[in-house]
């Protein structure tokens, strides 16, 4: 009984030093805010880049044999080449290196580390999202495409009204996974001095010399976030699917 009481007192003391003293809990809140902010804008940017890159890549693959030589074909080939380089570079280098390059060199002129992180993680995520969406576009039956074109829709309209909505629905689980990876991936933001959730916990560790409690708290918050978003996406998925049953 005595040991139990002692442990409990010890726990209270540690908890106090980690979170209450000097309002240290604010590190976590502020960090969580940055983590969510970076994830949110990176997600939006990633999806926008991903859709555009996927459309260029899929259009090139679909029309390779059909379009006749000319400026349009050359342009599409050019953009396809650019997209391929983008995919290769982004997927071939670690995100931490990309972040450091962004914060300390390439995007230095922007002056705001959080904004830079949003861009870096967005550009990084875009490469993975592009391949996910491309696989979704390629999975749609060619007949859907022909039906759209035969009604008089042009290529872009057919993509927009008919192909992309179906492709998006098909790849939603993979996209959700990418989103969850992204939440956790932003935890390297501290490398560039950005105070995200992980960095917030780590600062508390540095101040209190307590490693376990602040980091467990950080882990728990990530876990709650991921579980919550997984549940949310599952709901969205069921809602989209219901139309096809």
């Amino acid at each position, binding site marked *: 009984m005595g040991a139990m009481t002692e442990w409990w007192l010890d726990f209270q003391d540690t908890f106090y030093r980690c979170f209450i003293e000097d309002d240290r809990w604010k590190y976590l809140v502020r960090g969580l805010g940055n983590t969510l902010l970076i994830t949110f804008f990176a997600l939006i940017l990633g999806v926008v880049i991903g859709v555009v890159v996927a459309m260029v890549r899929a259009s090139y693959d679909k029309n390779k044999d059909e379009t006749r030589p000319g400026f349009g074909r050359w342009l599409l080939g050019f953009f396809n080449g650019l997209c391929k380089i983008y995919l290769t570079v982004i997927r071939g280098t670690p995100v931490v290196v990309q972040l450091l390059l962004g914060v300390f060199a390439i995007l230095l002129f922007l002056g705001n580390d959080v904004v830079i992180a949003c861009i870096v993680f967005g550009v990084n995520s875009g490469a993975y999202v592009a391949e996910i969406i491309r696989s979704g576009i390629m999975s749609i*039956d060619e007949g859907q495409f*022909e*039906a759209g074109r035969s009604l008089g829709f042009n290529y872009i309209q057919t993509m927009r009204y008919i192909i992309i909505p179906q492709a998006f629905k098909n790849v939603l689980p993979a996209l959700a996974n990418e989103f969850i990876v992204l939440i956790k991936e932003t935890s390297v933001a501290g490398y560039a001095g950005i105070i995200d959730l992980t960095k917030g916990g780590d600062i508390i560790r540095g101040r209190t010399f307590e490693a376990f409690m602040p980091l467990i708290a950080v882990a728990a918050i990530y876990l709650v976030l991921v579980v919550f978003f997984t549940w949310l996406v599952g709901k969205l998925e069921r809602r989209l699917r219901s139309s096809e049953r």
Partner: protein
Amino acid sequence: MSDNVLIRVSGLCKHFAGGDVKALNGVSAEIRKGEVVVVIGPSGSGKSTFLRCLNLLERPTAGTITFNGADITDPKVDINIHRQKMGMVFQHFNLFPHMTILENMTLAPMKLLGKTREAAESKAMALLDRVGLADRAKAYPSQLSGGQKQRIAIVRALCMEPEVMLFDEPTSALDPEMVGEVLEVMKDLAHEGMTMVVVTHEMGFAREVGSRVIFMDGGVIVEENEPQQLFEHPQSERLQSFLAKVL
């Protein structure tokens, strides 16, 4: 007379796989307004390719297609405008699974013809009523039978008020008991004077509804005649042997 010609095809060739496969080898034909032209032939004869070339779903390797006096094989022509006037019905229906029946039918008229939702929906409902599917307007394609899907596919194309309807084996993917309901809709359409080009294996339909039947084999038109003449007095040996097998 030539005013009457809606589609004129001349010297149409389509080669696949870099010229190794010659699906069409110089096909020339005319489709006149109000005509129901039925294209028959063994599989691999090029009849589907011929039909798909008419609205440039397949780009011809050589030859020209004139629709309403415009050469649509000319790269400078905006094919999308012409496709609005050429309805197409596919073997596998190709309804949009993520939209309701009504949305399937109103999408193109609203986005391409600039119709208001009310106008597009009232037109769609009138057509649905005609094919006896008005009660399924809010359903999704997956909730329909094959025959119902194909009837929807037909009226979806009709929503664009096309000048010609192209049918690519519209009953080939259907259970036998559903073939009749689809042919019935097509028959009605023909009686209303719609210009139709129909690739099919339904010889009964060809004989009964067709104003002209084209028999294709090996990528060329082998024989072309009124249905009665063609079926009862086939001239070429190939048509004779084909008919002996299918009739």
